C-alpha cells in the first residue's frame, strides 16, 4: 500500500483509496478514477513534478503533493485496461 507519489514511472497499481474531501480527488473521481480502478504512473515531468497517470483510457497530469492522498496497491503485473469501458 503506497501513496501514488512514490510509484516509479512505468509501475502499475490498483487504487485502494483517496480523499473525497479534497477538490482534486473529487475531480479525479468525476474522471472515473474510483477505488478498485487500475492505473499506471506513466512518467514524471522533466522537472520532476507533476506526474502523468493513466487510467480508464486517459492520461491525466497530477501534482506530487496531490498524489500523496491516493493510496495504491502496487502490482507489477496488473496491466491498465484499454477502454472497453469496463476496467
Amino acid at each position, binding site marked *: 500500500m503506497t501513496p501514488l507519489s512514490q510509484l516509479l514511472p512505468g509501475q502499475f497499481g490498483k487504487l485502494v483509496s483517496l480523499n*473525497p*474531501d*479534497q*477538490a*482534486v480527488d*473529487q*475531480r*479525479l*473521481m*468525476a*474522471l*472515473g478514477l*474510483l477505488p478498485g480502478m487500475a492505473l499506471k504512473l*506513466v*512518467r*514524471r*515531468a*522533466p*522537472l*520532476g*513534478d*507533476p506526474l*502523468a497517470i*493513466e487510467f*480508464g*483510457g*486517459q*492520461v*491525466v*497530469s*497530477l*501534482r506530487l*503533493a*496531490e498524489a500523496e492522498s491516493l493510496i495504491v496497491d502496487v502490482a507489477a503485473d496488473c496491466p491498465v485496461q*484499454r*477502454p*472497453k*469501458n*469496463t476496467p
Partner: protein
Amino acid sequence: MSSKEISVALVGNPNTGKSTLFNALTGLRQKVGNYPGVTVARKSGRCDCGDGLKVELVDLPGLYSLAAASPDEQVVTDVLLGSLEGSHQPDAIVVVLDATNILRNLFLASQLAELNLPLALVLNQADIAHKQGLKIDTELLSQRLGGVPVVLTSAWKGEGISAVRRAIAEALNKKTKMTRLTWPSQVESALNTIVQTIEKDTGKAPSAADVQRILFSSNTHTSDRLGWSHSHRDAVVRQARDQVRAAGYNPLAAEPLIHYAHLRKVLEGVTVGGNGKQGNAAALDKVLLNRVVGPILFIGIMLGLFASVFWLAKFPMQWIQAGVDFLKAIVAPALAGTPMLQSLVTDGIIAGVGAFLVFLPQILILFLFVGILEDSGYMARAAFIMDRLFSWCGLNGKSFVPLLSGFACAIPGLLSTRTIEDPKARLATAFAVPFMSCSARFPVYALMCAAFIGPLYGPGWESVVMVGMHCVGLIFAVPTAFVLTRFVLKVKPQPFVLELPRYQMPKPRDVIWRMWQNAAEFISKAGTVIFAITIIIWALCYFPRDAQMSDRIKASEPTLSEHELQARTQAAMIEQSWMGRFGKAVQPVFDPCGFDWKITVGVLASFPAREVIVSTLGVTYSIGKGAEADSEHLRTAMQEAKWTDGPRKSTPIFSLAAVLALMVFFALCSQCGATIATLAQETGGWKWAAISFFYMTILAWVMAVVVYQVVIRLT
C-alpha cells in the same frame, strides 16, 4: 412579440472535437456575444435541422462535471440549469462524447439527464474509434438510455453531420429524455429531505439537479443561489449526508460512485474491441515529454513560434505598406485645393491608420500558430512541462495558457484566468498577464528593430532584440508573481489536474476561421478606435496654426533654401501645436530615458491603446515632413531625426540607447485602457488594477532610465 427562438446547447468534455462539430453544424453563421454579468463568451450559431426547423445552437465550454471546479465551469452549469440571469434554459441538449472513451464521457451526460431536458448523444471521433478496432452498438446504447438518439460522427472528417441534424430534430420533436439513474433508497430519501425542507423554507420546489448539487458538493453556491440560507440549513444538509453514509457512501464521493456503477451496467456489451486510446499520444509523448529532449523541444518550439511570426510576416507587411503609400499618392493631389483636409486625410488618417494596419500579418500569424498548438494538443504538454516552474511562483501550469495568451492580447489572457480555482492564485496570474508582451507592443518592437537595429547591426541582432524584448516582460513577471504569491497574498499551492489529450491534426478550417475572427476584430479596432484617436491626435498636432509662421522664419533666416524653409516651418508648426506644447512640458520627465518630445507625445497618447504610438509617430513625423505628395516612410523620418537643441544637439534622437530604452519602457509599462478595465473587472474592483497601472508604469520608467543611461555611456 416574436416567438422565442429554439436554442439547443452543445455540451461535452473538453477535447471531444465539440467545436469542430459546432463549426460543421453552423457553417459560418456564427456570432459571439455575451452572457450578461459574466465574461464567458456566448458562442452561438444557426443550425438548419431540416423540415424548416432552424435552431440556435449554443456552444458551451467543455466541462467534466456539473460539480463545477472553477467559475468558468460554474457558468456552463448555470446556463444549463437556466439559472443565469438573462439567459434561459436551452430547449434541448446535445452531448458530444469521445467515442473512444464513452464511459467517462457519459458521466456528464448522466448528470445532465437529471435536468430532464430533451437530449441527444453524439459519439464523435468515430473514425479514431474505428481505427482502434472499436465497435459500438448505438442502437443498444440508445435503448439502454431510454431511446435518446445516438449518432456516430467524425466532425473532423465531416461525416455524420446530417445525422446530428436529424438527431436534434428528433430530440426536439419527440422530446427524447435520457433515462435517469435510480438512486439507492437512502440517497433518494436524503434528496427528498432536502427538497421538502427547501420547499418549506423558500416556498419554491428546487430542481433535482439543484438538490444533488447541494447534497454532493462541498460548496454552498447552489443553496445561496436558491436563497436557502436558513439557520438550520447546515444541520439539514448534514443530516441528509448522514443518510447517504448509511447507504455506505462518502457523500462527497457518492455521485461519481453511483453514476459510474450505473453507467458500467448501461455499457455492458455496447462496445467491443478497441486497443487503447493513447496510440499516438504515448509514442509522441515519449519524445515530447522526455526529461531531456522535452524541454529543449519546448524552448525550440516557442522560439520558433516568435521567430516565424516575425519573419513570415515581412512580405505581407511590405505589401500593406505599399498599399498605404499608394493610397496617399492618389489622395493627396485630389485634395490639393484644401490643404487642411488634405493634411487630415493623408498625414492624419492614412498615415496613422496605415501604420497600425501594417502589423496585421504579424497578429494573424501569431494567432494562427497559438491556435494550432492548442488544437493539436501540445498546449497541455507545455503546461505539464512548465508547471513546476509556475508552482514555484505560487501559480500552476494552468496559468501557462493565460500567460501565453497574453502574448497575443492580455484580455483573453485575463479572461482565461477564470479557470483557476483559487481567487488568490487567479489574482496573481492576472497581475502577471499584462507583463506578457501583447501583440500591441509587437508593432513598436518591430518598428524600432526594423528601423534601427536591423540596418545597423544586421538581421541576427534584430531577431535577438525582438525575442529579448518579449523576455523583458517575463523577467520582471517572475519576481513580481513570486513576491505577490508568497508574501503579499500568501497563496497556498494550487490543485492541478489536467488531461493530456490525444494528439490530433488541427483542422485547417477551424484554425483559419478562428484566425479570421481575430483578424476581423483587429481590423475593426483599427477602423474605429484608432481611426478616432488618429483624427484627434492629428488635430492636436495641427492646431493652433500660425499662417505667418513661414514668413517669420524667412525673415529671421533669409539664407534658407525653399526646401529647408518648408521643413523648418513644418517643424515649428508642430512644436507650437497643442500636442507639441504638452509634449514639451512633460518631456523633462522622460528626458533621462532619452525621449524627445515627439516620443513623449507618442508614449502619452498610447495609454488608451499601445499600438497608437506607431500611429502617433506616423502623424507627428509625417506632418513634420510637410504635405508633400511623395510619402516618407516613418522609418526614414525617424532615422534622420536629430535633437535640435539642448546638450544632445545634432545627435540622432534614435540612438541605440534611446531605442532600447523606448522598447524597454513599452515592454514594462501598463497596457492599454481595455486591459486595465478588464483587470479591474476580473479582480472585482479598481484597487488591483490601479496598483498594476502604477507599479508597471513606474517600473517601466525606472528601467528605461537605467537602460538609457547605461547604454549611452557604453556607445
